[in-house]
């Protein structure tokens, strides 16, 4: 009886101690750490802006469940920049001077990030950003890119694509480069021309159109007329689908075709996009999904994105880059055990950060590290990574028509 009583007391004490330890690990005290950012929640970029909002909310929620930062809860203040870079600039000023946030997180889209970068530079703040498209314009030394494009994507990205195609069963000999003049895709397409030339491909067509073009039919007719083995489309968002539809209307399907920044959901779901290629830093399959935290993030994102009314609930480049940005900021605060921007920037430049994209470094030109862009392809209505082999989805290889 006495032994049973003692055992009960010991067990009780052990449970209490465990409970205390557990509570201690998640205990948060003091005022919250305030992280400020803007996102394109309305206006033309709102569809993607919403992806970043959902990811940010998930990350901050998970972070607070893990005990916050420096023992303090984390509060995210996000303002709507209405897809306007000039407004983003004003709001970042406001975040620092009126809201007095402790840390900054970048907005969505290259124009808004450039605006935020200017403000961060004026106040000497660290700015981690999600999907900045033109690395050569990132001059500020305390900005850190979460999208692992590399410092010279105009050269490295086309090289990766053409290397993948050269290794395919039907290596192309001729190329057509057609491109939007949208800044972050135009320089990539010009890079593709140079790379293709160096690799001995014959350019049979080069066309440029202004962003916002309404009629893709004549462009489609010219592509059909040129009969390229490989079609490089410097398209952003809707443009890729519009060109595919125009080609279909004149009964033409490109042999091998690549789209720089397509709207991922609409393109993968389009029956016209069979075997279309693009680039990625993350897809919902191994080895990406084996990264620590990736599986839980994917599951939670599916649920929250559906609830937010996002039509395509798959985690791909935008959502992954967004999650990575938060991972970078958290790593810097934890490693330096402070909110000091100078210390965090110095640490980030000297260390690598484990993210769901892989290990990122920031010691190259403009704080860019390796180009981790891989080739993905639409197969059976979904995007799968096909090159390089070690990042390919299980059993997936590059398919040609």
């Amino acid at each position, binding site marked *: 009886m006495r032994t049973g009583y003692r055992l009960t007391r010991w067990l009780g004490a052990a449970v209490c101690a465990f409970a205390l330890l557990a509570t201690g690990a998640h205990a948060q005290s003091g005022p919250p750490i305030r992280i400020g950012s803007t996102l394109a929640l309305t206006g033309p970029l709102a569809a993607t802006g919403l992806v970043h909002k959902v990811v940010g909310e998930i990350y901050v929620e998970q972070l607070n469940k893990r005990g916050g930062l420096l023992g303090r809860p984390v509060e995210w203040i996000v303002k709507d920049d209405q897809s306007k870079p000039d407004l983003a600039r004003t709001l970042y000023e406001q975040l620092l001077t009126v809201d007095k946030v402790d840390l900054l997180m970048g907005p969505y889209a290259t124009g808004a990030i450039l605006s935020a970068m200017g403000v961060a530079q004026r106040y000497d703040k660290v700015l981690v950003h999600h999907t900045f498209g033109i690395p050569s314009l990132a001059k500020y030394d305390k900005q850190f890119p979460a999208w692992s494009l590399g410092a010279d994507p105009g050269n490295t990205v086309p090289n990766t694509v053409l290397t993948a195609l050269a290794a395919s069963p039907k290596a192309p000999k001729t190329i057509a480069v057609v491109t939007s003049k949208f800044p972050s895709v135009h320089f990539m397409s010009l890079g593709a021309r140079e790379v293709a030339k160096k690799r001995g491909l014959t350019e049979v067509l080069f066309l440029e*159109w202004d962003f*916002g073009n*309404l*009629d893709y*039919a*004549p462009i489609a007719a010219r592509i059909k007329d040129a009969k390229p083995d490989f079609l490089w489309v410097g398209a952003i968002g809707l443009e890729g689908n519009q060109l595919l539809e125009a080609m*279909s*209307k*004149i009964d033409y399907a490109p042999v091998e075709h690549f789209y720089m920044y397509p709207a991922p959901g609409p393109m993968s779901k389009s029956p016209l996009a069979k075997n279309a290629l693009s680039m990625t830093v993350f897809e919902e399959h191994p080895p990406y999904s084996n990264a620590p935290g990736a599986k839980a993030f994917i599951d939670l994102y599916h649920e929250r994105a559906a609830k937010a009314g996002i039509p395509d609930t798959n985690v791909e480049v935008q959502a992954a880059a967004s999650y990575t940005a938060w991972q970078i900021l958290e790593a810097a605060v934890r490693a330096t055990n402070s909110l000091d921007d100078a210390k965090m920037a110095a640490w980030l430049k000297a260390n690598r950060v484990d993210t769901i994209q892989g290990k990122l470094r920031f010691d190259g030109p403009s704080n860019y590290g390796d180009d981790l862009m891989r080739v993905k392809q639409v197969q059976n209505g979904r995007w799968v990574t096909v090159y390089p082999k070690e990042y390919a989805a299980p059993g997936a290889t590059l398919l040609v028509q």
Partner: protein
Amino acid sequence: MTFPSGTLLAQSALSGVFIGSMYGLLGMGLGLTWGLLHVINLAHFGLAFLAAYVCYQLASVGGMDPLATLALIVPVFFALGVAVQWLLSRFSVSPLNSLLATFGLTAIIEAAIQYFWTADFRKLESVYSGQKLRVGGLFVPIPELLTLVLALLLGFGIWAAMRYTDLGRALRALAEDAPMAAAFGVNRRAHALLLAGLCGALAGIAGVCLALSFTLTPAQIYAWVGVVFAAVMLGGLGSPLGPLAAGVVIGVSEAVTMAFASPSWAPIVSFSLLIALLLLRPGRT
């Protein structure tokens, strides 16, 4: 610059005719309210896109045939057109202020579209989507052909009504000299509301054509403004056939430019043509 093949040139010109008919269809309602009511109704673009989204919703979720949605869309957008005109006349908005007021209304419509359908892309997949005819070496897509046929029917129908009916004569008289027309018993207010309703219905029909041929996003509203304005200016205010003819001229000139040279030159060529025609046409003031 390389000389394109005959097939490429003909296919491009054909696509120019189709996109031009879309410019003309959108411009028809805009030009009529501008010319006859002295209202520069930018909300016409917003209403057209709203109709496109309504068509998308009824067809893709409700399972209706996109063309059958016209039976609902035309009366509803007629009523919306009347409502906009009633508001503008209620507050005696001047032509210049109508531009500003209807621009604001367009922004509100855009926000409402974004609220209900989000800013993401919406594509109407219908029985017409992939259909095309083959004529010799040329391909004729059915949705674009429907737009052209509707634009021609409406253009000629309204032209005939304006020319041969009492209602049309009354509307032209109002535009020419409103006090004199009123002295002859023309009810200015009722006729203005009727015409605005007709233009609202035209926006609804243009919206259905947009949904049939184009992927929709709310921000696309503004992509059409410049070129449709050009078609209206070139075709003449208050004319139903003018914007259609001008739209086809602009569309073909853009498409042929794209066939010969870089597509990025297309707007330069079409707007240069606009400036030249505006400067050189007889009777300009």
